[in-house]
C-alpha cells in the first residue's frame, strides 16, 4: 500500500505493508535511524515518537493507523518548544551512558513537559516508567526533566538526607 504520512513537518510517501510498524517505516524506509528498536512489543519505550504531540510506541503502531496525524521523531524534536529544552538539559546533566534508550526518553520527557510544564516526581514516574534505561541513568533523567522545567533538581522522594 502507498501511504502519505506527515513526519517532522513534511509529507512523506511510503510503500509498505499496512501492518508494518511505524518504527520500521521510519528506520528502514525513510532512513530516520534515531528512533530505536528495543523489544518490538511496547515494553521498553526505545521507539517512542510523538503522534500529534502524544508519546506513542512506534514499534506497535501500524503505518496504516497513522492517517493524517503529525509525527515528530528525535531528529526534529529540537523544533518543538519543550524538545530543545529537554535535549539541552540532557547534555547539561550528562545523562547518558550508552545512549541507546535516550531518544525514547527525550521523546517521552518532552511530551510530558508539553502537557505538564511543572511535573511532580510522581508525575515523572508515571510518564517515564514505560521507558527502560538498561544503564539505569534514572537519577539523571529525573534531574534533567526538572532542569528543563526550570525546577529544582532535588528528588522529593528522598526523605533520608
Amino acid at each position, binding site marked *: 500500500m502507498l501511504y502519505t504520512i506527515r513526519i517532522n513537518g513534511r509529507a512523506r510517501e511510503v510503500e509498505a505493508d499496512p501492518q508494518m510498524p511505524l518504527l520500521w517505516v521510519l528506520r528502514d524506509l525513510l532512513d530516520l535511524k534515531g528512533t*530505536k528498536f528495543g523489544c518490538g512489543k511496547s515494553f521498553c519505550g526505545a521507539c517512542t515518537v510523538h503522534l500529534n504531540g502524544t508519546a506513542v510506541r512506534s514499534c506497535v503502531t501500524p503505518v496504516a493507523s497513522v492517517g493524517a496525524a503529525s509525527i515528530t521523531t528525535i531528529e526534529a524534536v529540537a523544533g518543538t518548544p519543550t524538545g530543545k529544552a529537554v535535549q539541552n538539559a540532557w547534555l547539561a546533566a550528562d545523562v547518558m551512558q550508552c545512549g541507546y534508550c*535516550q531518544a525514547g526518553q527525550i521523546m517521552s520527557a518532552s511530551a510530558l513537559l508539553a502537557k505538564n510544564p511543572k511535573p511532580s516526581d510522581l508525575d515523572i514516574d508515571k510518564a517515564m516508567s514505560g521507558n527502560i534505561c538498561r544503564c539505569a541513568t534514572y537519577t539523571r533523567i529525573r534531574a534533567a526533566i526538572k532542569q528543563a522545567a526550570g525546577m529544582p533538581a532535588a528528588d522529593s522522594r528522598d526523605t533520608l538526607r
Partner: protein
Amino acid sequence: MKNAENPMVSPAGESRRAFLRAGVAVGGGLLLDFSLPRPLSARANSPITESTLNAFVQVSNEGIVTIISKNPEIGQGIKTMLPMLIAEELDVDWGDVRIEQALSDPAKYGLQFAGGSRATPLNWDALRRVGAAGRQMLMSAAANQWGVPLSECETASGKVMHMPTRRSLGYGRLAAKAATLPAPDLQQVPLKDPKNFKIIGKSHGGIDSPLVVAGKPLFGIDVSVPGMLYAVFVKSPVFGGTAAAANLDEVRSQPGVRDAFIVNGGPVFNGLVSGVAIVGTNWWLVDKARETLQVKWEEGATAAQSSEGFAGQAAQISARAPAAKVVSEGDVTEALKQSAQRLEAAYSYPFLSHATLEPQNCTAHVREGKVEIWAPTQNPDAGRKIVAKTLGVADADITIHMTRCGGGFGRRLMNDYMVEAAWISRQVGAPVKLLWNRQDDMQHDFYRPAGFHFFKAGLDGGGKLHAFSNHFVSFGENGKAAPSADLNANEFPAKFVPNVELGISLMPLGVPTGPLRAPGSNGLAFVFQSFIDEIAHAAGQDPLQYRIDLLGERRQVGAFDTGRMIDVLELVREKSGWGKRTPPKGSGMGVAFYYSHLGYFAEVVHATSRTDAKITVDKVWVAADVGSQIINPTGAENQVQGAALDGIGEALGQAITLNAGRVVQSNFNDFPLLRMDQAPPVEVHFLKTEFPPTGLGEPALPPVIPALCNALFAATGVRIRSLPIDPKLFA
C-alpha cells in the same frame, strides 16, 4: 605548568619498556605513536590474557589535537575519559581536542577491548606519559627556536611560553618542528602535580552526547551499506540443537524474502551454530516470515536440562563432600562441634541475561575473499579470529569498524552475531545486516550462571566467627568450571577465619555462560555478604561493626587491603546515618561490602516491605575507594549509580529459567529491567586515598544486592536466600 622535576612513580612497580615514536603527521604537524608491552596482573575474570597499550596523538599545524580512541564505547565513557589523560599532560584546552574512533587493528593499536573495569588502571600512568612526552617535544622546539634553556619554558592552554622575554608560541606553530625532534624517554618525562590538573578531576560530558540527543546514527543497528539486505538467524530453542530440515520453499515465497537456508554450524557457542537464515529486502518482513517457518530440530541432550532439575540435583550434591576443595584451613568439622552456636543456610541465584537494550546485530560484506564488518562489539579482534577461522580467510583480510554499543555488560565480548552475519553475507553475495529480535537476544545469550551455595558457620561463646564452610554447587565438566561459574580461594571470609573450607562441585551444563557485569562477584557477593549478615545477627552484634571486626587489623591480605575496606565501611556508616536512624515499621537498613576489580565498596540500602506485598527501595548510599583520583567525576558518579541500580534490578525481578533445555523468558515483560518508578536515589561518596586510580564500570554492583536483602531482613525478619526476591515472603 613549570617544567619542574616531579617524582616518578613506577606504574604498579612493574618493569616495562615503552616505545614512543614521533614523526610528521599526514597533512603536517606532530604525530606521536606510543606502545607499551604490558604484563597483565589484574584479576583474570575476562578472556583477555595479554595486551599492548598504544596511543595515537596528533597535533596539527592549527593547534588542534586529535586523539585516537582505540577501545569500544559501550556506555562506560571511555571515549571521553582516556583522551582526558593525554590532554591534561599535553597541557591543552579540552575544547581544542578532537576524538576519533579507531578501527579494530591489533597490529597498530594492540588489544582493543572493553571489559574487567581495566581501562583506568591500565592507562592512568601510561597515557599521561604520552601527553607529557608530547608537551616536552613542543617545549624543546620552542626553546630551540628562541635559543633559551628548556628549563625557562612553561606551557598553558596549548602554548609554550618564555616568561623572562614574554614570548609565546602556539602548539600549532611548533608542531612541525617538534616532529623532527627525538622522542623523549617516557619514564623520564615530568608529570604534573595533581593539584595543577585542569582537565583531570573536572567533569566532562560524553564526547558523543550531542550526537546521541540529536538521534544521529551511531550504533551498530544504525549502519547502512549500499545494496544491503536484511537477515534474521533462527537458532534451535534448545541449546546445541541442530536444524535437520525446514520448509524453506514456503519461507522463500513470503513477501520481501530473497532467500532462506539452513546453516550447519558447529558445536562452539561463541562461533557459528546451526540455524536457519532468512534474508530479504526489509527486516520487518524477514522477521515476519519467521511465523511461517517450520524447522525440524534435532534437540540433543540439553533438552533434558531445567532450572528445577538443577536445583534438585544441587540439593542432592550438597549432602556429599565437595568434589574439589578450593580452600581448606584448620579443621572446620571439629571447630563446628566446638561451637557455642552453629548456623546452616542454603542460598541460590538464577541465570541472568545481559539484555543489552540494543539487540545483538552486525553488518557484514564478504566479497572476493575480503570481509568488511560493522559491529557493536566489546572485543573486536576475538570476533575477527572466529570469522577468519569459520570462513577460512586471513585475519588481515577482515576489516572491523567498531560502532558505538547500545550497552555491553559483557555480552558483546562474544562475537557470535559477527560470524553469523559474515557467513550469511558470503552465502547471499551481498552486504547483510543481521539483527536479532528481542526473543532471539534473550534466548541465545551467554548467561550469568546460576549458583547454589550451602553454608555452615560456627561461633564461639563471644559471637566470634571461628568456623566457616561453603559448598558451592556450580556448573562445569571434568573439574573445570563453566565460564564465570568458578569460586576463588580469596573469597571473603576465607583468610579471616581460623577454620575454613570452601569447596566446589560441578554439574554439566549445555547452556552457554559468560561474564555479566562484575562476573562471579555479582552472585558471590549476594550469598557471602548475606550469610555474614546472618552470622552477625546470630552473634547479636551490629552487622556493620561485626564486618569491621571480622576484617580485623589494618593489613594487606594478598591483594586485599583491609584498611581500605574498613575506611569505606566507616564512611558509609557516617553518610547513611547507620545506627542513628530509626526506620519506621516495615523499613530497615542493610549493609554489605565487596572488593572486586581493584575497587573497595561498602553500601547501605534503606528498604521497605509494604503492606501491599511490594518492596520499595528507598535509598542507597555508596562509599568507594578507587584510589587517588576520580578522573571524570560526572562519568564516575553515573557509572556507580547505574551499577547500583542495575544490581537492584537484578535482585528485584530478574531470572532466566530453563525448561526442557530452553529459556522460558522472551522479553521485558517476563525479564523485567528496573524502571524509573523503582529507582531510588543513590548517594555516592568517593574516599580519595594514595593508591593508583582503578576502574568503575563494575565494582559498585555486587554489594548492593546483599545490602538490599539485609535491609529487608532488618525490616521484616525474613531472610532472602534466593534471588530474585519473592515479595510473597513478606505477605
